[in-house]
């Protein structure tokens, strides 16, 4: 009798644990047209506006290794005004296009050093 109870408890815990972990991936809210949070299988998350299942408008993308992008998206790319925070605390604040720093921006290193300038495809134009 005790053995049956034990097996039942283990099975129940397993089912609960798998359903909880399964709920952590996928969409919470509206990830087609509206506002929603999508959690990818590698734990990258995007929380923001969606248009036609694409990231569009304002949103926050968080990578599991510490990168955080807050700003505008266009067809799922980082495009427009945005801030990228690197895992060590360094930060870029400025214009983005096609997923890269493109346009006017300010880069701040984790030690406080700053660089303001024009960026093209992720490179500062000296």
């Amino acid at each position, binding site marked *: 009798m005790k053995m049956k109870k034990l097996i039942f408890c283990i099975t129940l815990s397993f089912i609960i644990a798998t359903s909880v972990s399964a709920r952590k991936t996928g969409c919470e809210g509206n990830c087609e047209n509206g506002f929603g949070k999508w959690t990818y299988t590698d734990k990258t998350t995007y929380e923001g506006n969606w248009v036609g299942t694409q990231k569009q408008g304002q949103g926050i993308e968080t990578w599991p290794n510490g*990168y955080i992008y807050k700003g505008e998206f266009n067809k799922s790319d980082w495009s427009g005004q945005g801030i990228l925070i690197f895992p*060590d605390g*360094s930060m870029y604040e400025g214009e983005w296009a096609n997923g890269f720093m493109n346009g006017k921006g300010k880069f701040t290193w984790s030690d406080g050093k700053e660089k303001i300038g024009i960026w093209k495809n992720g490179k500062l134009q000296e």
Partner: protein
Amino acid sequence: MIMNIKYFNKLTELLPEPVRQFSGLVFLTFVVIFSFAILNVFFGQGDELVEKMKKEEARAAEANKLSKIISTLPSGILTFYETGDHYKLSKEQYETVCKITKIIPQRAVMGANLINFKATKIYTTNGNQITETFVNWDKEKNKCIAGFILNGSIDGEEEKITVSGEVLNFLSTGIDTRVYFIKNF
């Protein structure tokens, strides 16, 4: 031939008993050694087998050493900069983890590619394929350097790009450790 055998028998009869016994023993020993030498030629792997066993022993010892080191670290993100969120590695731990880490996962590659336009283009075109990855301890700078090499064509031209930088955070899975943030700016 028969004469030779008869002559040999007579000669052995002339020898004293202890000498004959000793000669028999020497002959028997020689036969045994010779037999094993022949068997070794056909069935034995000799030096090759010893070499393989040594390598396997060394591999097992290394795996044991690594698992001991990993078991002392918490699972999750390990950093080498000030942060309240994750486990901060000491200098010694940082060096050790660097030396045992071999894997660079996709997110770390994508992060390093964020400020390398050409690398991203090749990486995407190649279907996220990387030619080579490396994690090395720089003795002079006392830093862990990791990177990857990408091969591919951009606008019809063949390019080989090496993206590398200082590793500032690792991921410990409990089984192995992985590079998680390459600071290449």
